[in-house]
């Protein structure tokens, strides 16, 4: 196990450290400790299963933000072949909080796009911690148009704390950049599949998150404002994020119950970071199925279904129009 763990993972981490130590001893001294190792492994599995059977929304949030959690680039590597990254908004910037390009999924050419958080200080800064600025939404828009031009289905990975709140971002009209993407995506003439892989942070997430199928990984979150932001506004106290996470219903099952997403993709025991290969396998299967489903439609029908889906979000009964 990696040395990164979140607070409630500590008991699992300690057990795993023991297992690692035993394996080392066994290997270096050529003694057979298999029985003990197997016993501890089983214990670790049970402990993980028990901890993960009753996660609070705030614990899910921590898993969604886990430093070892696979990021967009890991999914690109794990799911696709022949990836060519395409860069730049063609106006002013080559920002990388959103990355994208063309690749193949089961030989089918696709356009892939997603927020990239970055690992390690240097990468994190390079990718602006996955917090897009207006230029990056406009780069995304350019890639969406490219997909439309060449009839490539779009696969979008969502993983952002939110849009970047900065002076330059406002000067470059962040609001318009997000709004325009929402408008264009609602009519983009190719199938779009969106997958929330970690954090679905507000408008920053939605700006590449309008599609024909919207999926969430089991331990991802999706929210209108970060729980810290919500707590700061409602309780004037950002440390009450745990309560805000609970109140806002940010986890996949809650959001599925509100009919705002289509499906939840199961994660390996202990979360995607504990078995990345298994995670890729799970997602690959779901993606195959979903892609076949959305590619089945004629374009106009696809757009009509997409429109009806958007109109169904929070639909209410009305007596008059």
């Amino acid at each position: 196990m990696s040395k990164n763990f979140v607070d409630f993972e500590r008991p699992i981490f300690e057990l795993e450290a023991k297992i690692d130590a035993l394996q080392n001893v066994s290997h270096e001294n050529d003694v057979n400790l298999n029985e003990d190792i197997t016993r501890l492994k089983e214990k670790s599995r049970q402990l993980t299963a028990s901890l993960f059977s009753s996660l609070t929304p705030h614990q899910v949030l921590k898993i969604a933000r886990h430093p070892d959690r696979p990021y967009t680039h890991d999914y690109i590597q794990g799911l696709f072949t022949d990836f060519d990254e395409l860069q730049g908004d063609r106006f002013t910037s080559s920002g990388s909080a959103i990355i994208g390009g063309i690749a193949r999924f089961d030989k089918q050419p696709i356009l892939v796009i997603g927020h990239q958080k970055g690992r390690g200080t240097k990468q994190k800064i390079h990718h602006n911690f996955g917090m897009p600025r207006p230029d990056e939404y406009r780069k995304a828009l350019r890639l969406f148009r490219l997909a439309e031009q060449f009839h490539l289905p779009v696969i979008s990975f969502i993983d952002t704390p939110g849009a970047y709140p900065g002076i330059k971002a406002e000067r470059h009209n962040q609001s318009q950049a997000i709004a325009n993407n929402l408008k264009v995506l609602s009519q983009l003439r190719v199938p779009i599949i969106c997958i929330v892989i970690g954090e679905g942070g507000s408008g920053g997430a939605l700006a590449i998150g309008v599609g024909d199928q919207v999926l969430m990984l089991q331990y991802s979150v999706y929210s209108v404002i970060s729980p810290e932001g919500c707590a700061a506004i409602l309780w004037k106290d950002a440390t009450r994020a745990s309560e805000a996470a609970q109140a806002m219903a940010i986890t996949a099952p809650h959001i599925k119950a509100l009919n705002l997403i289509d499906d939840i993709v199961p994660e390996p025991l202990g979360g995607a970071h504990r078995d990345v290969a298994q995670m890729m396998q799970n997602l690959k299967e779901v993606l195959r199925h979903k892609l076949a489903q959305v590619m089945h439609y004629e374009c106009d029908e696809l757009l009509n279904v997409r429109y009806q889906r958007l109109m169904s979000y929070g639909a209410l009964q009305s007596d008059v129009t």
Partner: protein
Amino acid sequence: MSWLTRLLPSVSSQSEQRKGVPEGVWSKCDACSVTLYRAELARQLHVCPKCGHHHKLSARQRLEYFLDDVNYTEIASTLQTVDWLKFKDSRRYKDRLTAAKQASSENEALIAVKGRLCRLPIVVVAFEFNFIAGSMGAVVGERFVHAVNVCLKEKLPLICFSTSGGARMQEGLVSLMQMAKVSAALAKLTDHHLPFISVLLNPTTGGVSASLAMLGDVIIAEPNALIGFAGPRVIQQTVGEVLPEGFQRSEFLLKHGAIDMIVDRRHLRMRIASIVAKLIRQPEPTDTKTAIN
């Protein structure tokens, strides 16, 4: 009795409640503190004649000032707010809604109507800031879509007066999705070549700014309105430096190309009428209402 004198009693009683100015015929400007004759302030559509400060208007007042008369038809006025999450912070969402209804005398944060502007039939939607900071939940989104649908059906232009803190947290992700919903509806309006005029009032931020408000074919702001995606406090905390003078104000947006024009409230009605008439290729309109100045 003119439309204006009809309005006066309700106007003065509301501003009294808000500002706590003692009963009487005098009022104080929120910005320059000059003492103003209340009737004169109302005649100026609540723009300070001394410093030009635009005082807040309720959505109803806005419609009454903007449209030819109050013979408008409300659109989807019976939609009921749903407490999707059984949300509770320091107060229950349900109680907050009750308080908001009392504070604003409206049942939600957006009013949608079909009315007339210089005799042109139009659809107007206006945000009510006194209803949970004009925040956009499911009713606001749905009512906006209904308004767009009336435009599509009857081939009418749409005018929106935005003033909002953004998405309504108490409705969780349902409120975020309203951004996608209203933007998709506006795409239909574009398809049908129907103009959408977006008017930005003080303040317009967050999810409302980042969806319908910034999608106008023509975008107009009232002077000195705070307009932006992130609030200034959040930005200041993030960047840790003092924000530039006039940051996120109408004049800043105009300078950086985000909006088409800044229009004084007292000229808004005729300016919009003229813009709309040109976009729908109708003759130049003349004012059908008693002149204000």
